[in-house]
Structures are given as structure tokens and as C-alpha cells.
């Protein structure tokens, strides 16, 4: 049913429809609204005999799911930021053990400085943890991706992270078509695990593997992820048949038919980029947008195919590989290896900074004019940077950067921007 609903609540409702059997969570902003609602629904008996465990840490949350999943239960958790890092060891472990856990990442920056707002630093930090990583463009996408995620995870025996931008999506009220149980049940078959802890048929899960076979184990894991690139489009097709709408997918194009500039991004910024594209198109700039919906495994060939006629690519990413530049753009560059395409890296939206249509338009035009520095920091406050650099030149013990910059900016109360 289509309704005006908060993103977190819509996602929680979708998760509930997927009938997980064990949910374990530890609160962290901005994931809280999802798990609060799931706790309520579980307590009310709306999710069958689902068990909701209030655990003492994110590490425990995912660990609980590791056990539950290995016991053949469908499992779910959600986290953000430091929480994801705190569970990092278990994140790798769940994947290594081939457990189809679904986890929402309400994307948020990583401190210090502590920052509760949105960017992609958290999921980027664990991009190579052998989880499939899907990024939601809007809340409809978030709802649909979760439903697809369970089917994907369970068909491949591989965990899936559904990344949705913290606050921007999790706390946004917008129209979402939340499916009903009949639809979800028709799409998502019951979980049939490939291995299960069963007294009738004992197995030993989680062996130590030495140099003699570790490479092979990882090779199989890689193959499994490449297979996900084949399976996912099939699941999207099936999803469309069941739900009469197209959601998810590896990557997709917007107004790319004749575009010689492509803006590539992931997550909720896609909407704003589309607005900017439209506005620039009105002024005759042949610009388009490519959304990466599945970041891991990275759809190299599919992305490359969408950029067939493009000569310039701007990767807008909400993360930063300090000392190196872009993370997603490095992947894009590798996808475009051997082709004569300029790839710009734009670091934007760090720590929740709003990405405006006007800034994006400016960025595109600057790129077209070959005036972007590499990497380009969108809306960088140059005054602050220069003052701080000057201060540091003068004082050896300059102290923490963040504090002084905030003093410089004279931030008091709520800043509206």
C-alpha cells in the first residue's frame, strides 16, 4: 500500500513481512527507528515466533545472528557507523561462514570527530568484507532492496548489507508503496539453508584453514560474488513481475543516451543529481547520471557499458580515502581501464553536509571546463582552511583541528544549511 511514511518505518515493515526468525540489535543513531519498530512488531506477535534480542553491543548483535543463521533461522540486524566498525570482526566472519544475514546500514560518518550524520565512510570501511552491498536511492528502493536482499542472500548463502543514507532516508517521510504479506511470500521462498547445526546431522562449522586451502576458499568466495552479478538481475526481473515496479539492480542510467558527461554516485544523492542533470539539460549541457545500486560485488562491465558514449565521468562519493582520494572512483576507473575517459573524483556530503543542486551544477560545469582539482571537495570552506593553515604555521602545538575550525566558523546553536 502506498503511504506517506518514515523511511525507517517502511523498512521495518518490509523486514517484518520477510518474517525473520531472529533479530538482534544494539541502538545507534540513525538506525534506531528501524529496530524500535521491529522490536514493537515482534513483541506484538506480528512476526511469527521471531525472537528480538536486545544485546550489549553491535559485535554481539551480529554474533547472535551468526549463531541463529547457522541454526537455519532467517536473521536481520541494522547498524551504523561506529557500530559497524565495532562488529567488524563478526562482519567478516559471517561472510566467511557463508551465512545469509541481512543487515541494514543506516549510513553515517565515522569519528573522530564524532559525527552522527550521513556519509558512506562506514560501509566503505567494510566494502571488502565479502558482503554484498546494495545502496538505496530512496525509501521505496530501501524497502524493495531489503526484500530482494533476503532472497539474494539465501540463494547465494552470502550476507547482504542494504545501505540507506542515515537521516536523509531513514528519517525522511515520503510516499512509499509498502507491499503486503501475500506479495512478499510469493517472492521470497522459505529459507532453506545449505548447512545447519542439527543434532541429527552434525557438522563442524568454522574450521581453521591453513595455507594449503585458504586461497581456494577465497577463490570460491570471489566466484560466489561474481555469480551474484548474474543472479541479481534475475531477482530484479522476478521482483518486477511480483510487485509491478522496477527496483534495485546493479546499476542504472538516467538521461545517459547522448550524455558526454556522466555523474556517478550511490545512495540518496542520486535524486539531487537527477534534479541537477535536468536543470543543466535545460541549458543544453549533455549530462547524465549513473547510479551504482550494487557496490559489492562491483558491476564493472555493467557500469562500463552504461558509459559507452561518455567522455567524462564525475564520481560523486560520500567518503574519502585519505591520502589517496576517491574509493568508488578508483573502482570506476578500474572498470574503465583502457578507455579514453576522464574520471573526476568529487568528495561530497561528508559528515552530513547537504549536497545542493546548485553545487552539483557548478561542479559539473567546472568539470566540463577542466577546472576541477583532484580530488574535488564539494563546498569546501576555503576560508576556514586557509585560516587554520595559517594558525598552524604560527603555533607548533596547534591542538585538535576540529575544535579550532568550529571556533573559526563560530558555530552556535543550529546551523541551517
Amino acid at each position, binding site marked *: 500500500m502506498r503511504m506517506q511514511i518514515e523511511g525507517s518505518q517502511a523498512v521495518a515493515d518490509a523486514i517484518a513481512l520477510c518474517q525473520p*526468525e*531472529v533479530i*538482534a540489535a544494539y541502538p545507534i543513531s540513525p538506525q534506531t527507528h528501524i529496530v524500535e519498530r521491529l522490536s514493537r512488531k515482534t513483541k506484538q506477535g506480528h512476526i*511469527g*515466533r*521471531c*525472537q528480538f*534480542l*536486545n*544485546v*550489549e*553491543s553491535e*559485535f*554481539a*548483535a551480529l*554474533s*547472535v*545472528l*551468526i*549463531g*541463529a*543463521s*547457522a*541454526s*537455519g*533461522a532467517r*536473521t536481520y540486524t541494522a547498524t551504523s557507523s561506529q557500530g559497524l566498525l565495532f562488529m567488524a*570482526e*563478526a562482519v567478516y*566472519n559471517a561472510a566467511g*561462514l557463508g551465512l545469509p544475514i541481512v543487515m541494514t546500514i543506516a549510513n553515517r560518518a565515522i569519528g573522530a570527530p564524532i559525527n552522527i550524520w550521513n556519509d558512506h565512510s562506514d560501509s566503505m570501511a567494510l566494502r571488502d568484507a565479502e558482503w554484498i552491498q546494495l545502496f538505496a536511492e530512496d525509501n521505496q528502493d530501501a524497502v524493495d532492496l531489503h526484500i530482494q536482499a533476503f532472497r539474494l542472500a539465501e540463494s547465494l548463502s552470502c550476507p547482504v548489507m542494504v545501505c540507506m543514507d542515515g537521516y536523509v532516508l531513514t528519517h525522511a517521510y515520503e510516499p512509499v508503496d509498502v507491499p503486503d504479506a501475500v506479495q512478499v511470500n510469493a517472492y521470497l521462498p522459505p529459507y532453506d539453508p545449505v548447512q545447519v*547445526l*542439527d*543434532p541429527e*546431522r*552434525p*557438522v*563442524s*562449522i*568454522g*574450521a*581453521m*584453514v*591453513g595455507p*594449503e*586451502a585458504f586461497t581456494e576458499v577465497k577463490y570460491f568466495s570471489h566466484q560466489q560474488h561474481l555469480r551474484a552479478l548474474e543472479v541479481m538481475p534475475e531477482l530484479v526481473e522476478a521482483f518486477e513481475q511480483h510487485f509491478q515496479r522496477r527496483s534495485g539492480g546493479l546499476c542504472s542510467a538516467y538521461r545517459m543516451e547522448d550524455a558526454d558527461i556522466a555523474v556517478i554516485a550511490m545512495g540518496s544523492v542520486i535524486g539531487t543529481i537527477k534534479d541537477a542533470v535536468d536543470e543543466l539539460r535545460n541549458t543544453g549541457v549533455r549530462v547524465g547520471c549513473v547510479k551504482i545500486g550494487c557496490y559489492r560485488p562491483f558491476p564493472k562491465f555493467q557500469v562500463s557499458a552504461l558509459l559507452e558514449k561518455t567522455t567524462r565521468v564525475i564520481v560523486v562519493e560520500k567518503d574519502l580515502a585519505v591520502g589517496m582520494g576517491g574509493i568508488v572512483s578508483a573502482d570506476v576507473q578500474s572498470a574503465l581501464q583502457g578507455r579514453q575517459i576522464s574520471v573526476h573524483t568529487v568528495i561530497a556530503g561528508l559528515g552530513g553536509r547537504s549536497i545542493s543542486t546548485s553545487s552539483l551544477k557548478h561542479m559539473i560545469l567546472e568539470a566540463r571546463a577542466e577546472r576541477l582539482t583532484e580530488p574535488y571537495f564539494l563546498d569546501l570552506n576555503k576560508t576556514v582552511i586557509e585560516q587554520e593553515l595559517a594558525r598552524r604555521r604560527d603555533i607548533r602545538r596547534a591542538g585538535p583541528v576540529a575544535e579550532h575550525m568550529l571556533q573559526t566558523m563560530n558555530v552556535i546553536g543550529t546551523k541551517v544549511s
Partner: protein
Amino acid sequence: MDEAMTTERIKFYQTGTFTAGNRLLDEATRTVQSRLDRTNSLNSGHRACQGCGEALGARYALDAAMRASHNQLIAVNATGCLEVFSSPYPESAWQIPWMHSLFGNAPAVASGIAAALRAKRRDDVTVIAQGGDGATVDIGFGCLSGMFERNDDVLYLCYDNEAYMNTGIQRSGATPPFARTNTTQAVGEHPGNPIGNGKNVPRIALAHGIPYVATASVADLHDLERKVTKAIGVRGARYIHVHVPCPLGWGSDPAHTMKVARLAVESGLFPLFEAEFGKIICSTPIRRKVPVERYLELQTRFKHLFGPPQDTEALAAIQAMADDNIAVYGLME
């Protein structure tokens, strides 16, 4: 401890309830380990050191648990010696459904299994989590406390060999005072582990008010099996702390594993007790009290205490710990 009881042994048999088996006892009173049909949950071919106390403790506990649960058991294992020596690819020594995830998360993984079983209405299956002292009292302590606090239906077994043996004998929160490890060397002004450090996790478990807490030793099989069996019959979070000597880490003769464990109990340094819902209800009396030296002298990790010159102060301090245990837990009948 005023109202606490001490455990009763069957008396007046050749070996009473002290040997594993006794043809003079009825079947039900003999140990699981004496049975032809014991599970051997941890079977031959594992790669534990000669005389490994942990391998013994694990088989003792799990076989008893298997019997008590009618073979409906799932076990989780924290990273550590037990995990490494039992399950290196391509061979597993386990005969029960078994899972290893990480060093610090065994209690949580077990909670997850218990939750899954509850969701699937499998109330006939017992979930056991097990780990060494490092996994239990240090890195996995948060998860353990969480599991206790939620009263998850898990029996946690800590096999305490009093240091990080898997990584090469480094100090843990369960390393006893004065013990030499590779991070508390027998050098300097105060050789060995500092006195006053460490934590008593059985007592902390007790403080959670969970339905059952016990300490046990590989040296007392009947006592250990009785406690495991009792724990299997209880729902909710349960904790048994099993003392398991490590010949490698303690510098004891592999043949002395039981002897050393026994002397730990008989000296009073490792008290055997049981608690229910936060209250100590029972302790196992010392059979033949020995001075702590008898225990310490068998282990090179305490060699520096015997000099020359003998560290009488340290020995007195350790004896005082033992005497304190005897008083607190009522270990002398």
C-alpha cells in the same frame, strides 16, 4: 555460606565415587566417561598437546551434556586451543554439531542459536558455548555478561587454564598471582603476575543472578558430570567454570594433569561450589587438604617462588588465598 551444604559422596566402596567407573556402583551412579557408549564428543585424532587438560575437560563436559540432553546438543566454541586443535581443515574431531565463529563472541553466537531454536520451537535442544579463560574472562566477557543478563538459554563452559595458551602462554585475567607467563616473566622486583589483579568470573556470573553457576575440575569427574547434568536440566543462562591444567603453559608433566588439578582443589586454591539464582548453595569438600606448595611445586610457572631464595612472602600469600577460600566456601567438613 551458613546454610550452604556440601556435596555428599558415596562411601564405603573400593573407590567410592572417585574413580571414573566402579563396577560396584549401579549404572546410574557411574560416570558417563566410564560408559562404553559415551559419545566421545571430542574424538581421537585431535591435535592437543600430550596430557591436555582442556581436551579432557571438554570431552567430560560435553559427553555428560550429550547424555543429559539425550544427544540433542549444539556446541559453540570460541577461538582458542580447543578450537584450533579440534578442527583444522580437513579434519574435525567433533561428533556433535559444532560451530566456531570468533574469539570474543561465543556467548552471543550461542544466544543466537538458542533464539533460533526458540523461534523454531525446538525446546528439546541444548545449546552450549565453550571457551578458554581468555575468551571468557577477557575478550568475550561483554558478550558473556549480555548472555547472562538476558538469561539466554545457554550453558556456558569456561575451560580455565589460566593464560592465553593458544598464542603462546600470555597472561589473562584468570592468571593467578605470581604465575610466570610470557607477558608476566619471572624477572624484576615482583616476578610473575602481580597479586591483586584478575577477576573471579564465577562470582561475577553469580552476581548476574542467573539460575545456575558452578565451578568444576577435571580432577573430579563425578562432581563435574553431576554439575553439567544438573545444568542441562535447568533453563536459562548457566555457567560452569572448569579448571583444566595446561602442561605446556604451567610447566607440568603431561602425566600430572589430573594430579595438578586435584592439588588445586585439595589445597583450596580452586574451590568447587554451586550457586543458584545468585546464592551459593553447595560446595564440594576437600578430601585431603594439602599445603599450596604441593600444588605449586609441580609447575615451573611457579618455580621462581622456590628460589633460592624461597619467596616465603609469596607462598604465604598464596596459602592465605587458599585458606580464605576454605573459609568462604566451607571446604573443610
